[in-house]
């Protein structure tokens, strides 16, 4: 047990938590924005994957990391708009359309990489570089804190900054009010003159962009190349964080951080005598239980309200 504690309290572990949480945070906020706009974004996974692939490919061929990141986020944004268009213009089931987009991303990225580089695995043969880390002069000499937060990737900083920004957007900005109103009751929102479609398109674009940033981090921060299906289900986990966090910005923040911490722990414990696969099931089991408890409480509340109104 003390060995486990040593691992958990080390600065390397805490730094790893921040790093591993980054894609979860960004994708979860993406999922949150879409969910609150009333359109579940199951395609987070595919948007991340497309962004990761596009980012590495563009950066590799153009030599510009910034351009790569920009194109990656751009592609994911377009996929968000495509999902919105499928839902709003063509009456598609948003879950099934999301599954379709995920398939498209999985096949499309692998096809693109194979066609361009003749490589089944990924873009490791292409030098694409990664987004810069942010050293913090002054702070990096402070014992524990410096090791943890100095030298983190710029996307990690962006991810953590996203939380207050989303909270502000939701509860202080006009767009956030509109977004929540549209998600809650589109007809009522339309009746007071909120442009429902435009709000949903914007929300889905923002959702895609955030997922795209998460994907770009994977291939241009976490590592510096694209690997086939490298998102490995992170988009779905982010979606779980959205529900586990009760659809509130800070709740989602904590849930995503929890998933990141659990994954980092699973990696660290691999060196000890604990099966890492079993450790990594903990957050999912937690989500499952939380989902049940949350639903049960909501149902009981609804039951009380019905009883009171009779």
């Amino acid at each position, binding site marked *: 047990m003390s060995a486990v504690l040593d691992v958990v309290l080390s600065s390397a572990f805490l730094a790893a938590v921040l790093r591993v949480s980054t894609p979860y945070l960004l994708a979860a906020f993406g999922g949150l924005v879409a969910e609150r706009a009333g359109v579940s974004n199951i395609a987070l996974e595919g948007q991340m994957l497309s962004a990761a692939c596009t980012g590495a490919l563009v950066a590799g061929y153009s030599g510009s990391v910034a351009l790569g990141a920009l194109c990656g986020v751009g592609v994911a944004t377009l996929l968000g708009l495509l999902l919105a268009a499928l839902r709003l213009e063509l009456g598609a089931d948003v879950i099934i359309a999301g599954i379709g987009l995920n398939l498209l991303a999985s096949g499309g990225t692998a096809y693109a990489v194979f066609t361009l580089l003749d490589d089944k695995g990924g873009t490791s043969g292409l030098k694409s570089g990664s987004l810069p880390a942010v050293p913090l002069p002054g702070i990096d000499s402070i014992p524990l804190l410096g090791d943890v937060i100095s030298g983190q990737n710029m996307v990690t900083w962006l991810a953590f900054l996203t939380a207050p920004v989303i909270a502000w957007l939701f509860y202080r900005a006009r767009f956030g009010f509109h977004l929540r109103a549209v998600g809650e009751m589109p007809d009522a929102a339309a009746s007071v003159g909120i442009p429902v479609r435009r709000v949903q398109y914007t929300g889905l674009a923002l959702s895609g962009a955030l997922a795209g940033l998460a994907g770009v981090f994977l291939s241009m921060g976490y590592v510096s190349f694209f690997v086939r299906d490298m998102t490995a289900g992170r988009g779905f986990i982010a979606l779980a964080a959205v529900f586990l966090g009760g659809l509130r910005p800070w709740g989602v923040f904590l849930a995503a951080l929890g998933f990141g911490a659990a994954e980092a722990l699973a990696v660290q414990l691999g060196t000890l005598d604990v*099966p890492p696969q079993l450790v990594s099931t903990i957050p999912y089991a937690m989500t*499952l239980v939380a989902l049940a408890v949350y639903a049960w409480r909501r149902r009981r509340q609804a039951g009380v309200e019905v009883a009171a109104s009779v």
Partner: protein
Amino acid sequence: MTGTLVETEDRRQYKATRRRGLTVDLSMTLATILAALAIGFLVMLLTGNDPVGAYEAMLTGPLERSFRVGRWLEDATTLTLLGLSVAIPFRARQISLGAESQLYAGALAAAAVAVFLPLPPVVAVIVPLVAAAAAGAGMGLVPGAMKARLGANEIVATLMLNAIVVRVYDYLVNGPLKEPGSSAVHSKSIQQDSALTPLSDWFGIPLGRANVGLLLMVFTAVALWLLITRTPLGYRIRMTGSNPEFAEYGGIRVPRVIEWSFVIGGAVAGLAGAHLVQGVYGRLEPGLAGSLAFEGIVVALLARNNPLVVVVAGLFYSYLRAGGDIMEQQTDVGTEIVVVIQAVIVLLVTAQALPDLLKRRLARREVAGR
């Protein structure tokens, strides 16, 4: 006398409507497939490949040698079972994405019996199958009960369950169930008597790993079709899917029906796991199912959740998969183009307003042309 005359007249009309519905369904499906293939053609053309050669290899390849036919049939068996497993909850309008967890649970149960429990012949084949179906059903019951009794979101519940079961499976195959003394990661092989008989034994031509699981799959599809169209439970499932409030009002216990749809789907996915263990690999291997579980969803969608059509869709789909592999060997085109084509099929199927939109466009053009 007149009564029976009216009845036969009614019956005739009813049958005609059904036939027309089926024709529309079939032609829509066909149009979707052709459109998706056309888009695949364009993608290959734009990426500098030779689409004609690629499609030739893809569409004729699987039939050229008997073992390729075997590969196709073996793949189609698993894929169709998975498609059937989601078609049932889909019929009750439950978006169950849990086929993966149910398949792995089934595979584990089948292997546990088939590797470790000595049984007389015939029984040795059946007991693991039953165990797999039971394990899959149990795995389906979890999200089913959560949805039916608590109203918990079934999409998140099934995704979480998948994540858990895949990891536990990975742990078991790498740890306690790993064959001792073997350098590669897999379990001990199943006993000879538990194997599903290869079709090669019957037909005397090499058919790879295709096995009697194929018949089991067809039998399952017919059974599910009968269940959906000819039994009270099937009626309740359809009612729940088309209008849950009305179903509830009509005295159907909707939560119970939802639970059953998950349990039945889970049992079928469990059989898919058993087929992989007893028919295809003969043991547990890491990542047994690959991406098949999600592709089962595509098959069910393409077949509009009609169990008999799922068989056709599954055969078609596996044909593309098998053809894609051959295409990659013979041409420069990656097999991934098949996944792209699949994705386009999904998007076209779900874009319900697309046909109407096209019709309106055409009508407008006609008006403008005059």
